[in-house]
Every structure is written in C-alpha cells, then in structure tokens.
C-alpha cells in the first residue's frame, strides 16, 4: 500500500515537494514561506531542502509576488505563489487580471504563464477581518485563468501537482478550515494518471436531488446527504470552478430533476448563479423545481462571532433541499 494518512495541508505540502523534485524550474514564492514554512506551514521543510533560490521569501507586497512571478515564468520558471490569506489577494489583483491572465492571448501563444496562485480561502476558523473571504467569482469571471479548489487530502495532493504542471495560470484555492482534515492519500502513479484537475466528482450517489458543492462546503454537503434519511441526495464536488465540468453536473441533474448549489461566497453574482443559469438552459425539461442557491449573504464577511450564522451549515443546506422539494 503506497497510501498514507495525511491532513489536507500536509497533502499539499507533499504534492509541492514532489513537484519541486520532479522539475527544477518549480519555485515557491511568498511571504514567510521560508524558515517559517508559511503561516499555515504548507511549505514546511521546503526551504531547508531546496534552498533560498527555490523557496523565495518575498518582501511584503502581493502585487510584487505575482508581478515578479510573471517575469520568472517568462524566463522559463514555474512559480507557485502563496498569498497569505484570501483578503490579501486584492493588492495583487491588477497583476493577476490585467497581466497574468492575458499574456498568452496577447502574444498569440508565444508566452506561457505556468503560474500557480495558492490562496487559503473561506471562513470557519474564527479569524479576524480580511482572513475569511471567498473570492472565487472574481477569478472565474476572468478569462485566461483556471480556478480550482480541493475538498479532501487526496485531491489536494494530486491537484496541486497538476496545477503546477499546467501551462495556464491556475488559482488554487485551499479551504483553510479543512487543512487539518485527515484521510488516506494514494500516492502511487503520476499527476497524469490521477483524476484530471478539470473533472467534477460524484462524491456520493443519489437519485432524488443533486447537491453541488466545492471546497469547504463538500464536507457539509456530504453530512447533509447523510442526515437526510427521507431523500436520496447526490453530492457533486466540482473541484474545478473554471472551467466547470458541466457534463457531470448536467448528467446528475437530468437523473435527479432537482438541484441545490451551496457555497460560502455571497450568493449574488456568485458561481451558484452561473450554474443555475447553465442548468436551466440545458436541463430545463428535466427540472422538477427551480434551482436553489444556498450561500453567504451579500454582506462583508462578518466578525467571527457571527460567522456561524453567515456560513451555510448543515441546516441551511437541508433547508435549501426542502425548498427544492416544496416547489
């Protein structure tokens, strides 16, 4: 058995290590990622083993991290950037949206941008302001970027390697409240033989309703499916947010006839809205009820003493399922 039990955080660390071993052009860059190993210790030990030239402790300037990563990519490197927290991504937004995402198209394919932006995202750890946001819709709205997230250690291990190997810029969203979740990780094989980064996964089969979730919400979706003894809930873990694997989503909805999409981000103009629109266009005659969205409110992320009310929990997800059946 080449599997091993790892937390999601350690699985990313192991995946990064393997990517660095396999390709000398892979670099880590970010704030405090060297001796400290990052504030969540995701790069723990890499500085010691690969040195300061490959694990670059940057000045405290997010635009600089992404901007210099672009230059390193132009020189043939594959930088993996760590943004310390979701709320600190925004100073780097200009370099990401106006430069990184566009260079390939601008150059007619002459420039490759194999840059990964790792961001610990989402709430649920009792953090202070700017440490609990879900910015995925900004990324999925931007052409030229790929956006993925992971819900379990095995995906974390393989998808970070696939993201590093990808010639497109990839925003890799790490659900920080799941960093400490443990599971068996199959480590034999290569990134090419693992489930592709772009594919959704049916995390639990069901027949009555489809529940689409991703990242930190997958665990809650599975709990909801477990808790509901009356209805058979199918849970689809999207994994890739841009592109979404609509084939898998449509196939599921055509079988179940009902859909709930759950995410932590505010509902308005969020990924749930996009999925609802697509499913309505493509599966209209299979739907027994309107698509229901369960998500965060259209407010700034609240102080952590209120986050249990803000974040969709088991009951809110089940309430969404009830609404889909009440129609």
């Amino acid at each position, binding site marked *: 058995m080449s599997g091993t039990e790892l937390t999601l955080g350690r699985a990313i660390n192991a995946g990064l290590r393997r990517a660095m071993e396999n390709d000398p052009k892979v670099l880590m860059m970010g704030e405090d990622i060297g001796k400290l190993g990052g504030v969540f210790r995701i790069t723990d030990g890499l500085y010691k083993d690969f040195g300061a030239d490959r694990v670059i402790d940057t000045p405290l300037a997010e635009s*600089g991290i992404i901007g210099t990563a672009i230059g390193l990519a*132009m*020189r043939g490197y594959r930088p993996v950037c760590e943004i310390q927290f979701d709320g600190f991504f925004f100073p780097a937004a200009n370099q990401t949206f106006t430069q990184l995402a566009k260079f390939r198209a601008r150059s007619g394919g002459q420039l490759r941008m194999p840059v990964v932006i790792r961001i610990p995202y989402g709430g649920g750890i009792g953090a202070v302001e700017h440490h609990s946001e879900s910015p995925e819709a900004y990324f999925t709205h931007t052409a030229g970027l790929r956006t993925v997230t992971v819900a379990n250690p095995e995906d974390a291990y393989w998808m970070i390697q696939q993201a590093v190997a990808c010639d*497109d810029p990839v925003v890799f969203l790490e659900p920080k409240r799941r960093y400490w979740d443990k599971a068996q990780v199959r480590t034999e094989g290569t990134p090419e033989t693992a489930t592709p980064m772009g594919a959704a996964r049916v995390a639990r089969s069901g027949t009555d309703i489809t529940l689409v979730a991703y990242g930190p919400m997958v665990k809650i979706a599975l709990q909801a499916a477990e808790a509901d003894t009356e209805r058979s809930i199918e849970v689809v873990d999207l994994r890739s947010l841009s592109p979404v694997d609509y084939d898998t989503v449509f196939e599921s909805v055509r079988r179940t006839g009902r859909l709930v999409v759950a995410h932590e981000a505010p509902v308005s103009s969020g990924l749930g809205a996009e999925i609802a629109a697509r499913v309505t266009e493509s599966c209209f005659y299979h739907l027994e009820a309107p698509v229901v969205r369960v998500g965060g409110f259209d407010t700034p992320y609240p102080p952590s003493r209120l986050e249990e009310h803000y974040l969709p929990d088991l009951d809110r997800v089940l309430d969404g399922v009830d609404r889909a059946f009440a129609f």
Partner: protein
Amino acid sequence: MSDSAAHEEQELIQLLTPDGESVPHPDYPLDLTAEEVRGLYRDLVLVRRLDAEAVALQRQGELGLWASLLGQEAAQIGSGRALRRQDVVFPSYRDHGVAWCRGLGSKELLGLFRGVTNGGWDPAEYNFYLYTIVIGSQTLHATGYAMGVQRDGALGEDGIAVITYFGDGATSQGDTNEAFNYAAVNNAPIVFFCQNNQWAISEPSERQSRAPIYQRAAGFGFPGLRVDGNDVFACLAVTREALRHAREGQGPTLIEAFTYRMGAHTTSDDPTRYRLSAEAEEWQRKDPISRVRAYLVREGMADDGFFAAVDAEAEELGARVRTDCRALPDPAPLDIFREVYAEPHSHLDRQRAEFADYLASFEGAEGAAR
C-alpha cells in the same frame, strides 16, 4: 534658479551640449568612431520619421491611437544602442525607438495601435517584451525575469542584463516601487530606465513626485542617476555602464533620463489645454537631433551628402510605414478565442463552437460580410 534646482542641474550627466559641443565626463567616458556617431544620428532621424508617419496615419483613421515619442529620441536610441543582443527589454508603450534598436519594424509596432492585435511580435525573437498599457506593471515583470537570469547563472562578462522602461507617472505606482524594492533585496541584474518627459498626460512631474526621481533609488539601496535625456551620448554611456554593473552581478541602477514630451501624451489629448507653448519652445532648443547634427558638422564627421542620404532614407521609411500599416490584415472573427488557454477549456470551446455556427448561418445569405 533656486539652490535645489542648481543642485539638480549639477547632477545632470551630459556629454553633448545643446550646441553640439562634446563635454567629456570623468565617470562616463565614451569613445565613438565617426561612423558610430553617424549611425546614432541616422537612428534618431529615422525613428522621428517613423513616429511622425504614425501620427499622420492616426489622423487619417488608419490607427486607433498612437503614443508619440517626439522629443524622446535620444533617451530611447542612446539606451537602446547600449544594449547587447542578449539583453532583455521590458518596455512601456511609447518606446518605439528602443523597439527600433531591437529590430522591430512598422509591421510589428503598428498592430496594437491599429487594433489588429493586442501584442504584435514574439518577445523571444527580439528580446523585447510586449508594450504595457497598465502603468508600471512591466517593472515587476522585468524584475522577476532578472531574478530568473540570476538563478540561471547567466551573469558575467557575456551575461544578460535586463532593462525596463517607464515614465515619470509610473513612479507614482505601487508596482514600480515594489519593483525597486524586489530588485534591491534580490540584487537583481536590472536597469530601471525612467524617461521623465515632465508630463503624465496633463499632470506635471511635480504632481507625481515631491523628490527628484533619481534620488529615490538611494532609499531602496541602489544607485540613481540623472542624465540629460536629450543627449544621445550621455544616455548611451550611462546605460552602458548601468548594464555592465547589472551584468556583473552588482545589482540594479535607476536612470532618470531628463527629457521632454514635445507632442501630446497620445493622439487623443490636447497639450495646449494644460501647458504653455513657451515651455515647449525652451525644450525645442535642446532638441536631441539638431545637437548631434551640429556635432557632426563641427567635427567634420559628415557632409551634406550624408545628411541628404539620411533624409532620403527617412522618406523611404515613411512610405514603407504607410504601406505596412495598410497591409496589416484584420484578424478572423474566431481569432477572438485563440490562445486564451494553453489547454482546452470547456466553457470557451463551447462558446467558440456556438459562435462558429452562428457565423456559418450567414453563409450564402445576401449581404453577408464574411
């Protein structure tokens, strides 16, 4: 003249006066043959002509926009001719003179401004990256690239130096200051070449920076120099030295080329709304081309035949620019989807197929455009 202005004047590195007199500088010796000086003169005249032609083409509706380099020829040709083949350039969007030195022609340069491409050339072919519109962004790309050069061990006598171009307005941007800092802490092999043309669209440089730009380098921990940006000799000598410094692993240099934008920011603005004509007249006396011409005549390095030949060459170039511009083909509609991603992206693939079907539905229809 105030004390501080007098001090700044003293700091200005100049090798050729506006009257065309050579003034040797102890730190920046420059030993050019007559042929090399004639070559610089030719470059200056030709890029001015290329620029004038592009302005005219914009007025004729052939280009959507043009950012004129008029007045900044010496800063661009001087620094551009200091580069070695292997050096790598990260330009802003007005650096047509540097592009000229890298071997780009009107076919490459006009595409962005005509709207047939958002790029126009292969950066690797020319060691000249794409024009950057979002002010200052390229300074970070250059710094990252230089960090890569460093990691590749590509320094030393035959090594690579990186240079990035930006204006005085860009020094207000966070990215430019982050680039200074990243380059400094990494000791990156880079030259920051600021063309201070005194105006960021309608805002004078005193609205951009309280401190003289070149002095800012000291705060980041590397040398900063102010050079007469209308003096092609000084720009060449100082840039050559800064590139050597970078190549030898001694880290970044900031060069502030003190120059003047004689025209509008782009063909879209009207400088008469925000500045006085007396200012332009004063700078006219410091013209980068006339002083080299005066030097060539004074030194007996060129005769009327030479100047006539350069003028004739400029005429030919003008005609070529016009022809090249009009010959740039419009892209095909489905090119919108080209090269957005390296690998298939199902959303885009679906949209492309739908749009192709939509376009095909017009085929054979009366009056269909394509």
